[in-house]
């Protein structure tokens, strides 16, 4: 049980609150309400990550199922999650009105922790349900357990973790659980805080292992406070990590190991690449280890003990194929002895019948010295159906003028077939992002 105290002095710190994990042996955030949640399917809908972390620690082993909702979920979205998970209880923020969801039991989550009147009735193997990060249609829920969520972990004593992610999604939850199961501390971000202020906090906390998406890390590379931190481990996940961002981070933090993890809510953490290059060795595609990989029709499939158990909901599709593999939807291409991530199956831009993956074009753009980050998208064309367009965030010192534009476009035409190179380019101050810290692709 993640609530079992070990006297290790573990703490989870948000901007405004620090949770002392050892106190959960005799205190909690749900008061007498915890007993009413025993055996129930509990929708967690609190306003901040400190309360979310506290409620998760309280509920594990007590609830039959915990249903995580993303930050800022609307009442309709919460109702949809409750239906899909057949939730019969709600944990809400004591500082806000309870969402009007039709459940049998509602319990407020309150901080600071209050002493427990009775020991926590933690006897169950709780299922953890969480939304996937798919962008098309309403998010699907998958079910995990602590076993699947922690299967990838190795001992982490003395490590001070930090993450840009929200812990209510799979990526952030991984980091929370690492911290609770053995790391020394965890520092979490705040949605109201800019990247500079977060880096200052991370520096003060002495964070050693820091996790975020490539888009998060590009913001770090652009910020003036990147040298506030001295990480030992820089971890990227959630989006394709291209050579440019890996090289940029390796140069900025020469004493750190820069690694990118391939993971999804459905498939779990599949593997970590720490050789400083994008993609992964072809030798990873094998079926003899804890994690089995296959490539079917150019798309990666994963079978492992870290994968979710199933999708939830009445019309839920099958999560795994007949051999137990999860279809990740990520297209890969073999180049010599290495597989490269080419893009999402659903994100293809069709230019006169020729297929273009936005991510592939972004990697070419990001390789240009003037480019810090890019977003490639389709522009409709009555002739070819679509054309490739791009938005660019320039590096400090690069001029947002025609000369730079022509130079970038010419470099792309040299690196890519004509139909893949962007035909249109605009300079922007920042790229649109999802809550999960990934470039928003508008479905």
């Amino acid at each position, binding site marked *: 049980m993640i609530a079992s105290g070990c006297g290790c002095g573990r703490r989870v710190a948000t901007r405004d609150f620090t949770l002392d994990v050892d106190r959960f042996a005799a205190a909690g955030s749900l008061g007498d309400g915890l007993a009413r949640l025993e055996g129930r399917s509990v929708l967690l809908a609190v306003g901040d990550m400190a309360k979310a972390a506290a409620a998760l620690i309280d509920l594990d082993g007590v609830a039959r199922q915990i249903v995580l909702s993303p930050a800022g979920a609307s009442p309709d979205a919460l109702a949809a999650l409750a239906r899909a998970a057949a939730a019969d209880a709600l944990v809400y923020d004591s500082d806000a009105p309870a969402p009007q969801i039709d459940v049998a039991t509602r319990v407020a989550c309150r901080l600071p922790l209050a002493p427990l009147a009775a020991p926590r009735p933690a006897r169950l193997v709780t299922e953890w349900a969480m939304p996937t990060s798919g962008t098309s249609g309403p998010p699907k829920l998958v079910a995990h357990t602590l076993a699947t969520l922690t299967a990838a972990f190795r001992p982490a004593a003395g490590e001070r973790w930090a993450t840009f992610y929200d812990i209510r999604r799979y990526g952030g939850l991984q980091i929370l659980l690492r911290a609770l199961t053995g790391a020394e501390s965890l520092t979490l971000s705040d949605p109201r805080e800019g990247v500079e202020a977060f880096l200052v906090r991370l520096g003060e906390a002495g964070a050693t292992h820091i996790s975020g998406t490539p888009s998060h890390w590009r913001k770090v590379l652009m910020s003036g406070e990147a040298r506030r931190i001295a990480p030992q481990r820089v971890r990227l996940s959630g989006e394709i990590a291209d050579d440019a961002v890996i090289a940029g981070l390796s140069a900025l933090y020469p004493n750190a190991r820069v690694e990118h993890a391939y993971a999804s809510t459905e498939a779990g953490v599949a593997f970590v690449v720490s050789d400083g290059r994008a993609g992964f060795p072809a030798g990873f595609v094998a079926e003899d280890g804890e994690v089995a990989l296959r490539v079917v029709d150019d798309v990666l499939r994963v079978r492992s003990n870290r994968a979710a158990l199933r999708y939830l909901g009445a019309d839920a599709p099958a999560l795994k194929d007949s051999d137990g593999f999860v279809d990740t939807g990520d297209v890969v291409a073999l180049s010599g002895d290495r597989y490269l991530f080419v893009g999402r199956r659903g994100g293809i831009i069709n230019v006169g019948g020729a297929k273009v993956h936005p991510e592939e074009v972004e990697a070419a753009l990001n390789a240009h010295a003037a480019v810090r980050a890019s977003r490639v998208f389709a522009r409709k064309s*009555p002739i070819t159906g679509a*054309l490739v367009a791009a938005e660019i965030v320039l590096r400090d010192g690069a001029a947002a003028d025609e000369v730079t534009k022509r130079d970038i*476009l010419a470099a792309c035409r040299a690196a890519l077939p004509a139909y893949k190179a962007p035909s*249109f380019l605009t300079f922007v101050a920042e790229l649109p992002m999802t809550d999960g810290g990934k470039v928003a692709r508008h479905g």
Partner: protein
Amino acid sequence: MTTRLTILAAIREVAAEQGKTLAPLDDDLPLMETGLDSLCFAILIARLEDAVGNDPFTASGDGRLPSTVGELIAFYDNAIV
């Protein structure tokens, strides 16, 4: 700039970017013989849309499309009211 000059300049720009050699741009020259391929045309039309604020190819309800350079210029002239 007149429509004629805008379009001819845009054709030359796209040809140069895409590394295409242009035939002499007489009004009677069939578009298929200009040296531009369909990708070039798609880019040209999108650039013209940005320049003149209008895409007569998308707006063209009756499906009549230009087939020579002169008809292309007229196509845009008629579209810009």
